[in-house]
């Protein structure tokens, strides 16, 4: 029925209070959100809660979508901030940031990096700590403060790590 409707049209229907439209949006976007959030938080319970919060927020504020950029990117902007809120409510010890802890094998990363060319290689050779900061600020579009909350480090540390990462990338790509 709604396979032909674009995300923007579906979102407009959500803004009008159409719950079936929310379901359409959920079917389209919840799966990849679940995977992307899982790469930033190892606790499936927190991820599920974040997905729920995200679509509740979409339901309430669908009218505030500006029409600029992809609906998917807009939803992700909500989701990553909901994740940060959820993590803030948890005791720090329970949170594992998958990206930082899941990559003990730096050598393999470096080899793959060479295979995928200069930028990929340079990114891969960053230490996991620096790469997590690059991911949070560049890819997820978070501010230093938000990235700090996501990774469990102070905002100042995010800034210095970002500076170090930039310096290292510049050196390698020069």
């Amino acid at each position: 029925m709604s396979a032909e409707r674009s995300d923007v049209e579906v979102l407009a229907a959500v803004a009008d209070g159409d719950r079936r439209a929310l379901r359409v949006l959920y079917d389209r976007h919840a799966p990849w959100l679940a995977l992307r959030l899982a790469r930033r938080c190892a606790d499936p319970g927190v991820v599920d809660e974040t997905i729920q919060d995200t679509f509740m927020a979409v339901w309430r504020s669908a009218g505030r979508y500006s029409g600029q950029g992809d609906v998917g990117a807009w939803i992700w902007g909500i989701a990553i901030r909901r994740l940060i809120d959820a993590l803030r409510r948890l005791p720090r010890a329970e949170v594992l940031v998958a990206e930082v802890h899941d990559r003990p094998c730096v050598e393999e990363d470096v080899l793959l990096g060479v295979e995928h060319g200069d930028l990929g290689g340079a990114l891969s050779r960053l230490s996991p700590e620096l790469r997590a900061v690059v991911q949070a600020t560049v890819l997820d579009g978070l501010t230093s403060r938000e990235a700090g909350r996501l990774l469990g480090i102070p905002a100042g540390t995010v800034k210095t790590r970002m500076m170090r990462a930039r310096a290292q990338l510049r050196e390698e790509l020069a």
Partner: protein
Amino acid sequence: MTWHVRPDLLERYARGDAEATQAYSVEAHLPSCEHCRGQIAALVDAGRLERVWDDIEEHLDAPRRGPVEAGLIRVGVPDHVARLLGATPALRLSWLLACALVLVFAAWGASRRTEGLVVFLALAPLLPIAGIAAAYGPDLDPTYEIGLAAPMHSLRLLLIRALAVLVTTTATTAVASLALPGLHWSAAAWLAPSLGLTLTSLALATRLAAPAACGSVAVVWLLSVAIGGRVTDEPLLVFGLAGQLTCMLVAAIAAAVLARNTDSFERRGGIA
């Protein structure tokens, strides 16, 4: 968009095995590519997403909290008590406005003549019992049937609401009293009668329906004010020291009766 993520990379990404820079590419691509989103949806546990959706629907179906209820929860009142209070007819804005209006006119009258003061002092204690008459019962309480079936003592419900009514009307009346001419002791003379009438109404409500209990108390009160004023030529007689003490005494007796009769209250299945 003509470029799509290779299926094997999508699978590795879904498993969490994709190498970091490749994962970045996937993540940068997904928000804008419907095709790849559709491909990856098949790799996610559908049952889990269905459960999350059920939670979302449950939240969407939950009734929205009114301003009174939300305010109470913010102050630290437990959820279920806040909901009960929020449904109290006497806490509705229309009710509070009506109270305020009555008080404004009475206070205005009191600033003109002594008889006006008597009217003010006689009316002020009636406001809380009018609220209690409306706080619980089949006619006015929107949650009456739910209240009967709820695992909660009917008297407790009535007391919680009576307390809320007493607090709000007392606060409103106290503000109105400040408008009385010259801050005299009489500006607070409604307090003890207010307490006495409220507790007597509650005690009677263990035997009668709440509106009947409150109504008879109101009639007795108005008669005693009128007769007291006529017989002795002292219109404020009921509000003098003796009157105040009598009100306190009545309040104490009513409280004792109320405490003894809590069981009979529950056996009758609440006031009907």
